[in-house]
């Protein structure tokens, strides 16, 4: 058992480490009782890089996002953002520094319009003053195709629009790193294409993207590097196609042995 853990830790060291990463996690451990949701996870994303994360349910992907975004405090390990240690900063502070995230199940603010949802993020997270925030929120609504819904209650939006609100709110905080949690799930193929266009725009704008996704073909269109997680550990990482060909990944994630 101990041997096994040591091997896993050794394997989890970052693949390359040149210059400060946009965001870097080292040896993250998150325990829930006796279960280790994160078991010494180390990963990094460089500036402007798009990193995909795959793995079976319960692999610790969303827990990793919670740790990076600051919503779950970790038991061990450290997180740096552009070389600065942020392990103990609150989620709101990390957001103001430039880390944004979206949720797998969209969580719009109920009782607010779509515009207000984005405005909150533009003012609090983006640190803009009143007039500037309103202009920027409108700009983000244009980019995410939500302008026509601006003054409707967020609670009334459909699934695609709720996902767009998630992305719009994250964008409104002017992030440098954006964490996307299964943003493509539950969408039709046509809707997915629209979403990929939007994410490509973010990437073209120089944003660092970390994207958890089960829909591989969508993920592979955008990402530069792929990480596969399983049981709280990093199983493999590197070139997306190499990772998907890795026998351990195929066993854990696809549930099948390579032919």
């Amino acid at each position, binding site marked *: 058992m101990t041997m096994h853990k040591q091997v896993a830790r050794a394997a989890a060291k970052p693949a390359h480490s040149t210059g400060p990463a946009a965001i870097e996690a080292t040896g993250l451990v998150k325990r829930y009782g006796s279960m280790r949701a994160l078991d010494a996870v180390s990963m990094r994303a460089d500036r402007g890089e798009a990193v995909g994360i795959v793995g079976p349910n319960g692999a610790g992907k969303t827990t990793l996002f919670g740790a990076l*975004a*600051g*919503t779950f405090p970790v038991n061990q390990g450290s997180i740096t953002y552009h070389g600065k240690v942020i392990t103990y900063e*609150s*989620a*709101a*502070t990390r*957001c*103001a520094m430039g880390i*944004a*995230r979206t*949720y797998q199940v969209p*969580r*719009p*603010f*109920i*009782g*607010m319009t779509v515009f*207000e*949802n984005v*405005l*909150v*993020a533009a*003012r*609090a*997270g*983006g*640190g803009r003053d*009143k007039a500037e925030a309103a202009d920027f929120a409108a700009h983000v609504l244009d980019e995410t195709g939500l302008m026509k819904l601006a003054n409707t209650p967020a609670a009334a939006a459909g699934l695609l629009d709720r996902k767009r609100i998630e992305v719009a*709110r*994250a964008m*409104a*905080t002017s992030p440098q790193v954006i964490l996307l949690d299964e943003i493509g799930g539950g969408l039709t193929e046509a809707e997915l294409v629209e979403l990929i266009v939007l994410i490509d725009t973010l990437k073209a704008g120089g944003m660092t993207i970390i994207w958890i996704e089960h829909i591989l073909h969508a993920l592979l269109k955008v990402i530069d590097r792929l990480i596969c997680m399983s049981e709280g550990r990093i199983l493999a990482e590197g070139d997306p196609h190499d990772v998907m060909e890795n026998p351990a990944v195929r066993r854990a994630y696809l549930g099948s042995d390579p032919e």
Partner: protein
Amino acid sequence: MFDGVLQALLQGGLLGGYYAIIAAGLSLMVGVVRFINLAHGDMAVLGAMVTITLTEVGGVPVLWSIMIMLPAMALMGWVMHATLFQRAMRGGFLLPILVTIGLGAALQNGMFGLWGSNTRSLGASIGELSWASWILPGGIILGKLPVLIFVTAVVVIGALHLMLKKTKLGRAIRATASDPEAAEMCGVSSRQAHRAAAAIAVTLAALAGVFLAMRGQVTPYSGPAQLIFAFEAVVIGGIGSLGGTLIGGMVLGVSQSLGGLISPQGSLLAGHLVFVSVLIWRLSRDWARDHGGWRASLAISAIKLRRRLTGGAPAPDRAPSSKGAA
């Protein structure tokens, strides 16, 4: 008789302004912070006691006393939340109740220790405002103080509504009320939003306490009764709705004053009865909504009741049958 009812309606409606102010703070805490502060009434009394002391002992004019007391109470609300409520909220549903009951007891006994058990009032300090009135056609008497309190209630609740709707802090508070974690991810510190809401709530309680002491008397133990009135107004008006809280306060006030017409003891009883009726109505409406509407849910209930009365005859398809085996 008619004049008496009209008078009671008017006075009750105006009294509702007082209830609305004390209830607005409670409503904000329940609706936004999801925290029930059972010491809310005691904080109202503390506000009154501080104002009375500043005026009577310090010789500060009443208006200035209030202006000094309100920010101090806001600060106290902020600190209370940062030190006590925030921790209590992390400890499950029972801890906030125990902590705020304890806080209420500490406040009551602390005030008793400081100021003794005598009844105190601001009535003497506000001169003719405490009894002056307008006489309307038909002999209807309209007290100037109740009108002032009611107007203040409308202004305060309107301002609070605008603040929540239009300002950065208001949106932060509403975002936090909807989803604290998602709000954090938008850069809103949910702790700061909660502390701000607690500061506003305690300020409103203290303002209500001042009006209570202007209208009549307070003792260190007046708080729990005010808490009950505040809860009743919040529930009648609907939790989380500020406009509803104003209406809830007025309904409570009118019920009490109409009850007072029936018998001198009827006043409080009538208020409580209206509260219980509204509560039962809301619960049964929700029950009916979750069971396919009134007609369907009542029909099923009637069938269930009949079965119970007739000895619970088993349903036909559950009866043992030899044919069923094949």
